[in-house]
């Protein structure tokens, strides 16, 4: 133990001797470590962000869609849907109502529309569906009220819009309630405006620009009362697998295996996450290059250091230090330099993550910290060993004699 302290003491003394050099050398590792750690934390935050977006849509959700959407856990088909892409209809919904373990069944027809109100025109996504959509997606009104089952039966032309669209058209959310809007060519009465749900980042769905109408009032857009997707909420997590099977068997009576997919929300979440994970890894690999460059900087300076201290090495040898001692001494210096850079880099990353926390759920986990420390030490050893060997190989007599 005291041997270690001895080594460390000398290393620190040496660093103090030339503070600028110590700083610059560890700066390289500092920059390298912070960029890697920050990118890792960004990736973690992204995962959390996506998960939150999905969960805000509701938990225990199963989605039935036309075509085969996932294959081996990743998305399949590049924009082209299945040949003979089917659309679901009211009969399918009625058939599905027979399953057990489903608490809500919500069919959805969706399309891009132009929404006009108050003289302004905006684009938004129209969702023609049943009243349960508000339940299944945890949507609550910010102002006004939501339309319900009776509105659906009566085919009332009522609409509930997201706050972003409300503000764009009418200025404030309260102003929008009660007004008349035109969706494409049809007039609707704004019954209510929803609370904000966020979204819209990274090209994801912009929840606050959606507009919900009862599907029976949307016959002008959807005369066949078709649906592009059916959202089903399971009554509990354990029943999801059975529910999926039941849904599949019911639909197989009308459609073929390849014509539709029954996917759990988590499957989609995983597919999306893995895409982002790959991107993140690439970025991290690139950032890691800077660590290599930093290591080279350490190696370079250590060589200089060795030459500067040749006589010192000679004297140490003279009073009993073995080649191994010299080797160990110089490697330790390199490792400590590297660790200083690593620790400072971690600290800087913590600071930055802390500041970003309010905008984005990035976070640094334990494995990042261990990785940073481990990699710094490794760099110190790898890049320090060459100069250290040069130092330890010096013959004591040559060393002492050096001018």
């Amino acid at each position, binding site marked *: 133990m005291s041997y270690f302290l001895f080594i460390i003491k000398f290393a620190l003394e040496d660093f103090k001797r030339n503070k600028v*050099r110590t700083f610059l050398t560890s700066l390289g590792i500092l920059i390298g470590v912070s960029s890697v750690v920050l990118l890792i934390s960004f990736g973690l935050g992204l995962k959390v962000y996506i998960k939150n977006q999905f969960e805000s849509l509701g938990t225990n959700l199963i989605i039935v869609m036309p075509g085969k959407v996932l294959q081996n856990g990743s998305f399949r088909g590049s924009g082209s849907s299945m040949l003979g892409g089917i659309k679901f209809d009211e009969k399918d919904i009625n058939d599905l109502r027979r399953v057990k373990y489903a608490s809500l069944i919500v069919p959805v027809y969706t399309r891009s529309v*132009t929404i006009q109100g108050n003289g302004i025109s905006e684009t938004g996504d129209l969702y023609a569906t049943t009243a349960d959509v508000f339940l299944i997606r945890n949507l609550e009104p910010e102002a006004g009220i939501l339309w319900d089952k009776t509105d659906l039966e009566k085919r009332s032309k009522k609409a509930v819009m997201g706050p972003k669209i409300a503000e764009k058209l009418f200025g404030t959310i309260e102003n929008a309630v009660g007004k008349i809007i035109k969706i494409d060519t049809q007039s609707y009465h704004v019954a209510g405006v929803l609370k904000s749900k966020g979204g819209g980042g990274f090209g994801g769905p912009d929840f606050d620009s959606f507009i919900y109408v009862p599907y029976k009032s949307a016959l002008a857009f959807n005369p066949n009362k078709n649906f592009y997707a059916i959202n089903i909420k399971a009554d509990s997590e354990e029943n999801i697998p059975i529910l999926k099977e039941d849904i599949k068997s019911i639909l197989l009576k009308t459609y073929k295996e390849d014509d539709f997919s029954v996917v759990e929300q988590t499957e989609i979440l995983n597919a999306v996450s893995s895409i982002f994970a790959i991107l993140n890894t690439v*970025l991290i690999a*690139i950032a890691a290059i800077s660590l290599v*460059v930093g290591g080279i900087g350490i190696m370079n*300076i250590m060589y200089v250091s060795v030459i500067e201290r040749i006589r010192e090495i000679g004297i140490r040898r003279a009073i009993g230090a073995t080649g191994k001692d010299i080797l160990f001494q110089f490697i330790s210096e390199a490792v400590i330099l590297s660790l200083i850079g690593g620790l400072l880099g971690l600290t800087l990353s913590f600071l930055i993550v802390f500041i970003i926390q309010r905008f984005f759920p990035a976070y640094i986990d334990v494995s990042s910290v261990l990785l940073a420390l481990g990699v710094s030490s490794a760099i110190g050893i790898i890049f320090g060993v060459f100069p250290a060997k040069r130092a330890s190989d010096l013959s004591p007599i040559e060393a002492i004699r050096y001018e």
Partner: protein
Amino acid sequence: MHYLKFILKSTFEDLGRSKLRTFLTSLGILIGISSVVLLSAMGLGLKKYIEDQFRDLGANLIMVMPGKGIKGGFSSGAGMLEGAKFDEKDVVNLKKIKNVTIVVPAFAGYSDVEGNGKAESYEIIASTPEIFQILNMEPEVGELFDKADVEKKNKIVVLGSGPAQKIFGSASEALGKTATIKDLGFKVTGVLKSKGGGGFGEPGMDDHVFIPYKAAYSFNPDKKFIVIYVRAVEEKYVGEVKNDINTVLLKRYNQDDFSVSDQKEIMDMLSTIFNSINMVLVAISAISLVVGGVGIMNIMYVSVVERINEIGIRRAVGAMDHDILFLFLSESVILSLIGGVFGLLFSYTVVTLLQPIFPAYINLQSVLLAIGVSFAIGIFFGVFPARKAAKMTPIEAIIHD
């Protein structure tokens, strides 16, 4: 000029004194520059590759698609779900527009294609015979289907070279066989020449299967199309034709239900996407350049201290402040440039080796950028040590032990 030569001579002498040090210092810049140049080369290659695929289709090509398509960006998933939209009436209407040579509607979707005991999934394109013209595809063996086949609703299929090989073994073996699509049998009357393409998980041109659209009524009963290709007579008429198409379609559909895009728009959008991605990648790899620069600064400080006596003597024989500054600055710049130039050479080698797998390339802009950035790094990171050297009073310098 003579002065410059003098400085350069001193610089190279000094760099030669410790070759290891010179090597290690410029190595940092070498690595930094190579990563930046290589990444942007890959980005350029990818962009060019996709642009080539589009250019192959011809610049006077206009695509009519349902929904907002490209203009609406990709955030609105609703547009994509629209599915088939256009029908034969639209095709007839569009054909009447002047300055239009061909109008080709198509319906596409994925399906399993079975034959020879095997089953593989491919994108099926149901269209008119002109689709082969538009896509510049020619038969390798057999023949393409024609107008008569479409009218007679013949169940024939033209395979791309990919499916022909994978299912039947080779193009010639596929000819005359039956391929089953969605439980219907289609006779293989032709196999297309290979065009290459694909990669990155996208089906290339060779992995498609073509059938006359009227034979597809069982899975496309409404005879709808998801895209209509329109070729203008010449590039200069594209704008006019686009407007005419818009007018014609507005008679039946809402503005939001379709989009008319030309090659240029698509390529512009692609460019924007690639440029953004590229910028991010380059920015991250630039971090290593900064670290390399820090390394240069560090070593230059060492160099200055080592040569204090030398600086003193130079001063004594008449060198001014700016001479010393210039001397050290040129050392750091040359160190940096050496790293940069070798980094460029290294990148060039890697790109050349990768050529068969991937069409990355280094353009002039990258080269200039690499050299310029190396230069800038040398100056920026070298100026601090150089100033320290220049500011030393001659007497201190000479006396220094």
